[in-house]
């Protein structure tokens, strides 16, 4: 398999077609995939938490807000056109539940909400989201076609 670039936890990478981006084992984390379908470049961020809360320093790829900002800057720097950018996201699961404990603020849901909000704020249309559930996901993003391939252990595989 040529041109598969691995994105770690709290990491973000960009790629040019026909390269693909891979991130493995998303639980409550979210993979944000963005590409320009005409210029055929894109990127993937594996974010862990909703917001950096304005704190500077640290790793910007860890948080939905700072990661999206950095990802957009890098993709635009490669020559993509902002008005053509499209997003797909996956992840945000709740892997464990404890009986009798209210789960008011599930981190997976909060992550998904934050990512959707940040995309809206930046004017990037979210084409499709595969979020929630109680299972892990490994995703491959083809930056040329925009196809997002999602693999799970016991909940099937799909392309969105």
């Amino acid at each position, binding site marked *: 398999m040529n041109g598969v670039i691995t994105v*770690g*936890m*709290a*990491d973000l990478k960009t790629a040019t077609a026909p390269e693909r981006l891979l991130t*493995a*084992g*998303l*639980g*409550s*984390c979210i993979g944000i995939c963005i590409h320009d379908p005409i210029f055929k470049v894109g990127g993937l961020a594996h974010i*862990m*938490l*909703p917001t950096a809360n304005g704190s500077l320093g*640290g*790793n910007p790829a*860890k948080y939905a807000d700072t990661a999206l900002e950095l990802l957009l800057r890098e993709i635009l720097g490669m020559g993509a056109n902002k008005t053509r950018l499209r997003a797909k996201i996956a992840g945000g*699961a*709740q*892997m*464990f*539940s*404890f*009986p*009798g404990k209210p789960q008011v*603020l599930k*981190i*997976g849901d*909060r992550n998904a909400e934050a990512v959707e909000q940040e995309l809206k704020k930046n004017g990037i249309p979210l084409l499709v989201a595969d979020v929630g559930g*109680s*299972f*892990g*996901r*490994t995703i491959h993003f083809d930056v040329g076609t925009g196809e997002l391939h999602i*693999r799970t*252990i*016991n909940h099937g595989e799909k392309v969105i």
Partner: protein
Amino acid sequence: MEITQFQQDALREIGNIGSGHAATALSTLLQRRIDMSVPKVWAVAFEQVSAIVGQLDTPQAVIYVKVEGEAPGKAVFFFPVESAEIVVQALFGLTEPVDIYFDEMAQSALKEVGNILVSSFLIALTQFSGIPLQPSVPALAVDMIGASLDAIFLEEGVLEDTVLFIDTQLTGIPKIEGQFIFLPDDGSLNKLLGAMGV
């Protein structure tokens, strides 16, 4: 979080005593020999956790227990799926394969194993530190290891730049591999170290 060499040694000692008790409990439970590695103390960025678990999407059985009491934290046992199946077979005296993904009996057996291991760990830690600690009800996920660990580490929606945990490998003869990690919550570490006079 900066920790001194002396504190690291104290933590490794916590790991030694606690995991030693847990390994003995597992050995008694399964009626087979269980070896334990020298515990490692890690103070790393969470994104480097993959260094200790290998491939993030390898399926593993993860038993997660919250540590409650005056020095709260988290205790996690994880076994590769094949090892978890052997553990369940050994517990029930089965020779036929078990399905730990869907068989509820197998899953509750695994949770019980986690419960016993964590309780043994906590009893040792309580005796050692004088700080009373209790385990929560155990929760189980059989899924990609990275997915399970990120959910555990990020549960409260905050993450220190550095996470600190004690990591011990348990190896059973034949063919059982497991890993135990204990993560003190922010603040608990100082309490535990303080109680130990470090």
